[in-house]
């Protein structure tokens, strides 16, 4: 009979400790080195934007990756985080970074009723509800102009008034880097936890998970709130960095679509998938912005790419590449030996005979 340590190797594809840690080390070095390597402040500011995407995609993956619920509304949660941060500073006079934290808590609290309504429906219906959330918030923030500034925008005071631009970018690059590592560590912790296993069971078969005793609704709601809090932190940090919020950009379905594209492209079952997707798509977006400006081309390309990824790489690039490497390395040999019922019967018979003789 096999013992539990065999099972650890075979039964649980525990992602292993070394690969994620090695990747974390690489990521930390890359984040630490990038600002000094960036040739000019423009590239550095693009780096901040890409890291913002990486945090957003990783935050989204708490819901999308674990439970399989595809939210197109996460852009709006970031927008809420941004506006809450800005308003707490301008209207309530709270210090910038305290405002950022309080805003994240407020958005997390707001995520409870939002999740309560949205997580009752599954599949395509959930996607549509998440889009509705964005559109409703866009309307609210545009028309409630006495508070939000409406279409004129909301100016958020800089947290470091005297600081020069390049230094400002550098500081925020590191702040985003820290937030990204925190989000990744939390995702990793959940991924290996019993709670995480329950969430993944929801992704596989929600009714079955319920019937095995998992309180699926409470699980979904909890992870949605965690996801919203990280998303709001990214949005709030963006408000502090960029200093100007416009409802059209903060509450845009396009933002949510980019996040989904990044996560799916990189791979939602992998800790670093969304980061990888954010780097690829985020860099491409910055490039296109320079080459073509803001055009409907973005929308078309995003839609097209999303379709291609869903059809040809449902698990994203990391597993696709991993699978390729594995095939090259192992040749034809498959990683798991499958047994037919006949093999099984034969083996049982041998065991019985072995036991009786």
């Amino acid at each position, binding site marked *: *009979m*096999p013992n539990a340590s065999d*099972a650890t190797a075979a039964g649980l594809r525990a992602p292993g400790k070394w690969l994620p840690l090695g990747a974390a080390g690489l990521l930390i070095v890359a984040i630490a080195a990038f600002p000094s390597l960036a040739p000019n402040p423009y590239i550095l500011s693009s780096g901040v934007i890409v890291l913002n995407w990486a945090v957003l995609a990783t935050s989204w993956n708490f819901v999308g990756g674990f439970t399989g619920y595809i939210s197109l509304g996460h852009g709006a949660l970031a927008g809420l985080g941004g506006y809450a941060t800005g308003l707490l500073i301008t209207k309530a006079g709270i210090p910038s970074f305290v405002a950022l934290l309080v805003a994240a808590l407020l958005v997390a609290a707001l995520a409870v009723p939002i999740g309560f309504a949205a997580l009752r429906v599954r599949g395509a219906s959930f996607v549509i509800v998440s889009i509705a959330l964005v559109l409703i918030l866009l309307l609210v923030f545009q028309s409630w102009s006495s508070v939000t500034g409406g279409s004129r925008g909301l100016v958020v005071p800089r947290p470091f008034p005297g600081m020069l631009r390049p230094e400002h970018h550098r500081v925020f690059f590191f702040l985003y880097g820290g937030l990204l590592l925190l989000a990744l560590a939390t995702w990793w912790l959940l991924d290996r936890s019993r*709670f995480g296993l329950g969430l993944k069971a929801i992704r596989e078969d929600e009714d079955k998970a319920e019937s*095995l005793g998992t309180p699926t609704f409470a699980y979904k709601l*909890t992870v949605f709130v965690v996801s919203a809090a990280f998303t709001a932190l990214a949005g709030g940090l963006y408000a502090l960095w960029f200093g100007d919020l416009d409802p059209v950009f903060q509450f845009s379905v396009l933002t949510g679509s980019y996040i989904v594209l990044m996560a799916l492209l990189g791979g939602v079952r992998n800790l670093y998938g969304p980061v990888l997707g954010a780097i690829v798509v985020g860099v491409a977006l910055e490039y296109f912005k320079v080459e073509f400006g803001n055009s409907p081309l973005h929308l078309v390309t995003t839609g097209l790419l999303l379709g291609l990824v869903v059809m040809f790489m449902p698990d994203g690039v990391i597993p696709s590449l991993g699978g390729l490497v594995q095939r090259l390395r192992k040749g034809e040999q498959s990683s798991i030996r499958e047994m037919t019922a006949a093999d099984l019967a034969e083996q049982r018979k041998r065991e019985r005979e072995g036991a009786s003789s």
Partner: protein
Amino acid sequence: MTLTTHGLRKAFGGVVAIDGADVEFRPGQVNALIGPNGSGKTTFFNCVTGMIKPDAGTVVYGDRDLTGRAPHVVARAGVGRTFQLCRVFPRMTALENVLAAVRPGGLLLGLRSAHRRSEQERALSWLTRLGIEHLAGAEARTMSWGQQKLLELAGVLMAEPATILLDEPAGGVNPALLDRIGTLVRELNAEGRTFVIVEHNMDLVMSISDHIVVFDRGRPIAAGPPAEIRADERVLGAYLGV
């Protein structure tokens, strides 16, 4: 604990699937629920386990009223079930499938590692008991139908339910496996677990059950020990479609 329903009713549009069923399943026994196709057996399971809310009537388990409660509440009350079209988590390994049945108490407990040794050993011992331990590392979707049925049962057992509802455990399995399932149910029952089994294979039903309830058009038409049921004319009538 006794599982009873009173006046249970469920209609889908115009189709009355359960029609005021009063049923009692006895603790510590292997109970069977038989009846022609479409007589409402699966719907009855779904109403009892909370997958479907009944239109009327009550479901009582021991001294707890489980009517209309969520499936996870019913599961935690000690009633486990399998599905007619066997359901496993296709992209999890067999071991993960079984571990997924572990029910974290609070959130803090839920943050503990799913890889804990004691739980893994317990999960593995269920796989071993069902004879599929060699597949611990295989994804469920790569397993054969029979192996998936065994895996589903292992998952249910992991949650340590006192009462287990099986919906057609012998459906689509080969004769060797059929024997094994029969023996297994008997052994698990001897260890104190109560069973309610929906099954079409009459040889299996007659050989393993202590108490049989016969359904026809959404309500019980007979109940008793196998010998009695075998001789009952109403049962023969229902099966012959009179």
